[in-house]
């Protein structure tokens, strides 16, 4: 199998999970209500757990230790989409991002559970329950607040419009799309995006939110190649602050 292609695929998925997991964990202690704080923090931990599992697979393919990979790289060495590094802003933005991202996440892992690359297929099957919870949580809130009050609807609408161009950046194509598809490793970003759009439309149609015409939204890309907003490096500095004091320490 094409190792370069597999590594590229694994890195971008793991980096997305790690960065969004860290971002979402910034809500711990600040969530809008205790129960939601617990749920959101727990899902953030799930995402970090997924990234750890994928970094372990990468480690077996000859990449560095998971901790080194997570904590010792600079922003331009990360392959996450820009969507996941944006600051939390207010809870409406975090919820919309959670919805847009996790809708893509569950479809991506569903596709990967059929992968000919067994380690990722196996992991995808293992985390199915967690992903199902994440989307159930996101969908319930979006349906609820997307039909609630003038304030909740307008807040979600603004956040949706802000997040969409970045969300489309999730599907930035890899240089190895053909190889991945041909070898049955991954069906490809285009196919994922198509299914994602259907799901997003299906859910938003049950709310009072207006989905802009897809053609009017230009994707923000570059994240997969290490091009990031000014928000990623400060996140990494904070996330790795303790680790970098003594990278050799045993935890």
């Amino acid at each position: 199998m094409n190792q370069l292609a597999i590594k590229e695929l694994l890195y971008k998925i793991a980096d997305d999970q790690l960065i969004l997991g860290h971002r979402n964990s910034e809500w711990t202690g600040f969530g809008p209500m205790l129960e939601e704080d617990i749920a959101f923090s727990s899902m953030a931990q799930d995402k970090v757990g997924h990234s750890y599992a994928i970094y372990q697979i990468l480690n077996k393919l000859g990449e560095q230790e998971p901790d080194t990979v997570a904590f010792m790289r600079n922003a331009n060495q990360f392959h996450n989409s820009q969507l996941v590094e944006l600051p939390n802003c207010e809870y409406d933005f975090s919820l919309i991002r959670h919805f847009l991202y996790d809708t893509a996440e569950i479809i991506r892992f569903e596709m990967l559970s059929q992968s000919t690359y067994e380690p990722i297929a196996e992991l995808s099957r293992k985390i199915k329950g967690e992903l199902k919870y994440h989307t159930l949580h996101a969908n319930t809130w979006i349906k609820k607040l997307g039909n609630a009050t003038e304030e909740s609807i307008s807040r979600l609408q603004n956040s949706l419009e802000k997040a969409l161009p970045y969300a489309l950046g999730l599907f930035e194509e890899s240089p190895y799309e053909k190889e991945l598809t041909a070898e049955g490793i991954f069906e490809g970003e285009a196919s994922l995006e198509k299914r994602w759009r259907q799901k997003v439309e299906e859910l938003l149609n049950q709310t009072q939110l207006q989905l802009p015409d897809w053609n009017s939204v230009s994707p923000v890309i570059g994240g997969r190649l290490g091009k990031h907003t000014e928000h990623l490096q400060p996140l990494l500095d904070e996330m790795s602050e303790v680790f970098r004091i003594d990278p050799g320490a045993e935890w």
Partner: protein
Amino acid sequence: MKSLDPRVNRLPGFGQGEVQPKAALDQLGTYEVFVQAKEGKPFQHEGIVHASDIELAYILAKETFTRRFTCVSLYVTDTRDVYVSPLSEGQTSAYDLLPAAEVQQGEQEMYEVYHLVKRGKQHVHAGEVSASSPQGAMQVAKQQLGVGKVVYNVWVIRKKAIRYTTDTDKDLWLTLPDKKYRDASDYKAGDKLTAFLEKAKHAV
């Protein structure tokens, strides 16, 4: 625009106004959470979550009370749908404190019955009964589930008022097992502290 944050709406307004009673708190309602730890074990009351409706209550209850492998199923119901018997103590059963039974007419419905058999513990599922009212369900439970037992408190809940875990929800508890870093026990702080102190002693 009225804020969604209840704390903002609780702030007193400025300027002249009438003398009025303090307003009720603008808070979400509560839902009771019942959890089944293992297949074949009875459900027990685990706690309460705040939520705006029963579906959201179910979702928040899942992460609040059953994050890791402690659960195969859970259900939630509006707190106001839990009917509670009098509380007893000593050798008196709560069933004996119920008001005199009256024969009930009307459509029969199924009720879940919970018993408190030890003070300070949770209410545990005791069975289900058919009755036409919560009061009637208590009477039926007394005959079918309460004979010869000391039960300190009885709850009955109409099954139709419960959001159960469906078969398709079951895989919510399938999770990645390798997450020891989430447990305090994975950080052997004591050993490390001892080693550190040893090292420090020798350094001096």
